[in-house]
C-alpha cells in the first residue's frame, strides 16, 4: 500500500508549497516598480505640472527652489509622502516580501539568512519614526485638499474633469492616511479602558474600520496620485483636454 523514498530530512529545499505563492510578491514588485520609475521620471521632468490654478500633487505646494538646487521643487515635497509610505506598516510587509524576500511568502525560505535583525538596528530601526511621517503626510494632505478647493472655486464654481480626479485622489489619500496604524494608536489605541473616554473610543473605532482595509487604501491611493499627476501632465502638454462640467459653457 505504500512506497518508500530515500531517507531525508522532513524539510528540504525552499518550500513544499505547490501553489502560486510567487504570484503576489511578483505583482507587488512590478506594481511598485512601475510607480517608482514614473514618479522619478516626473520629479526630474520639472514641466507640465500646472494648468492655470491647478497644480499636480507631485509639485504642490509650489515651493521656490534656490538657484543652487539642482533638482525640481518636487523633491522638496515628495520625500514626505514617500517617507510616510516607506515606513507604512502595510508597505513594509509588501516590500520586505517582494524585494527583500524576508520571507517571499509564508512557509517559503527567506533569501540570505545571515545577520537578520529585523527592525532593531539601522536602517530599519528608523521605521519607528512612522508617526512623524504621518504628521508630515497630514500636512501635505491638507495642502492637496486646498488645491482641490482652489481648482474648483478659484474662478467661481468651476468643476472640471481634472478637479474631480483631484477630489477622488484626496478622498483616497485621506482614507489611506487616516487609516494609518500610527494614527490608530494616537487616537485611542494606547488606551486600555475605552469606557473612560467614549469620544476617543468612537474615533478609534472609525480609524479601525479604515485600518482594516489599509492595504486597499494604500494601493488605490498610490494609483490615484500617480493617475492625477499623469492626467494633469497630459492636459498641460496638450494631449488630453479638460472639459468643464459645471457651470456649462
Amino acid at each position, binding site marked *: *500500500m505504500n512506497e518508500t523514498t530515500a531517507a*531525508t530530512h*522532513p524539510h528540504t529545499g525552499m518550500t513544499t508549497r505547490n501553489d502560486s505563492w510567487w504570484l503576489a510578491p511578483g505583482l507587488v514588485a512590478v506594481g511598485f516598480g512601475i510607480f517608482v520609475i514614473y514618479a522619478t521620471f516626473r520629479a526630474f521632468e520639472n514641466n507640465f505640472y500646472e494648468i492655470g490654478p491647478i497644480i499636480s500633487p507631485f509639485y504642490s505646494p509650489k515651493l521656490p527652489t534656490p538657484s543652487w538646487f539642482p533638482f525640481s521643487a518636487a523633491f522638496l515635497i515628495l520625500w514626505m509622502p514617500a517617507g510616510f509610505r516607506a515606513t507604512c506598516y502595510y508597505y513594509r510587509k509588501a516590500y520586505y516580501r517582494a524585494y527583500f524576500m524576508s520571507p517571499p511568502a509564508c512557509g517559503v525560505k527567506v533569501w540570505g539568512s545571515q545577520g537578520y535583525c*529585523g*527592525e532593531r538596528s539601522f536602517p530599519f530601526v528608523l521605521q519607528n519614526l512612522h508617526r512623524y511621517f504621518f504628521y508630515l503626510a497630514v500636512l501635505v494632505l491638507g495642502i492637496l485638499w486646498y488645491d482641490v478647493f482652489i481648482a474648483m472655486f478659484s474662478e467661481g464654481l468651476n468643476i472640471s474633469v481634472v478637479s474631480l480626479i483631484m477630489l477622488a485622489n484626496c478622498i483616497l489619500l485621506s482614507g489611506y492616511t487616516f487609516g494609518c496604524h500610527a494614527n490608530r494608536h494616537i487616537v485611542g489605541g494606547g488606551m486600555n479602558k475605552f469606557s473612560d473616554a467614549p469620544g476617543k473610543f468612537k474615533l478609534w473605532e472609525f480609524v479601525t474600520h479604515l485600518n482594516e482595509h489599509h492595504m486597499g487604501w494604500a494601493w488605490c491611493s498610490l494609483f490615484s496620485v500617480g493617475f492625477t499627476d499623469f492626467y494633469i501632465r497630459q492636459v498641460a502638454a496638450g494631449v488630453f483636454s479638460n472639459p468643464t462640467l459645471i457651470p456649462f459653457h
Partner: protein
Amino acid sequence: MPEAILKVFRGEKDSGTFETYKVPIEEGMVVLDAIHYIQQNNDPSLAVRWNCKAAKCGSCSAEVNGRPALLCKSRMDKFEPGQEITVQPIKTFPHLKDLVTDVSWNYEVNKKITPFTPAPDANWTFYQEDIERVQEFRKCIECFLCQDVCHVLRDHNRKDAFYGPRFMVRMASLEMHPLDTANRLKSIKEDAGIGMCNITKCCTEVCPEDIHITDNAIIPMKERVVDEFYDPIGKFLKSIFAGK
C-alpha cells in the same frame, strides 16, 4: 470509491522518508481523518498529536502541501482529485517522530511573561468595549502555527531573541486588559524582541482562529514601544501635559 494519495513524513529526529498512502475519500473528510485511517489500517504506530478534532484545542498542527495548518481543519475536498497531498511535521521545532515535534520551548517562554496584575483595590466593573480587543487575543488555541511560520523562528532560528507571535498576542492581551497595572513595554522590546518582527504577516495568514495578530496585537504593541523608547518629542509633550 475515490482515493486520495497522501505523502506522509515518517521517521524520527529529522531523519526519515516520505511514505505514500492511498486513502478512500469520504464526504466532508479532513486530512486528520486520512491520517487516522492510515493509523487504523496501515500502521498503528504513526505518530500524530490530536485532541478535539474540531479546531478548538490546537494540537494537530502540521504542514499540508507546505502550508502550516491544523490537520482537523484541512478539508480533503480543497485539493484537486488525484493531487498528492504532502503532510509534514512543523518545521520550527525539534522533530520527534512522524508528525510530532517538541514544542516545549513555547511553554518555557510563556513562564517569562509577567502575569496579569490587577490592583489590589481594583473596581471590577468594566464594559464590553473595554475587553473586545483582549477577547480576540484570548481566542488563541496555542496551536503554535504562527510560531512555526514566523521566519524569525523558522528560518533564522532566533529563539534567543524573539518570543514569537503567540506570545506577542499574549503580552498584548495583558497590556490591553482594562485592569492590568503591570508595565511590560521594556520586556516587550528587550526580552520578547518585538523589533525582530518585520510585520510580514504570515502569522496572521495561518491563524486558524482568525486573530489579526499583526494588525491588532503586534503593531499596537510596536506603537506603544515607540511611545516609550523612540518618540522623545511625544514623550516630552506628554510629560509637560501630565505635569500640569
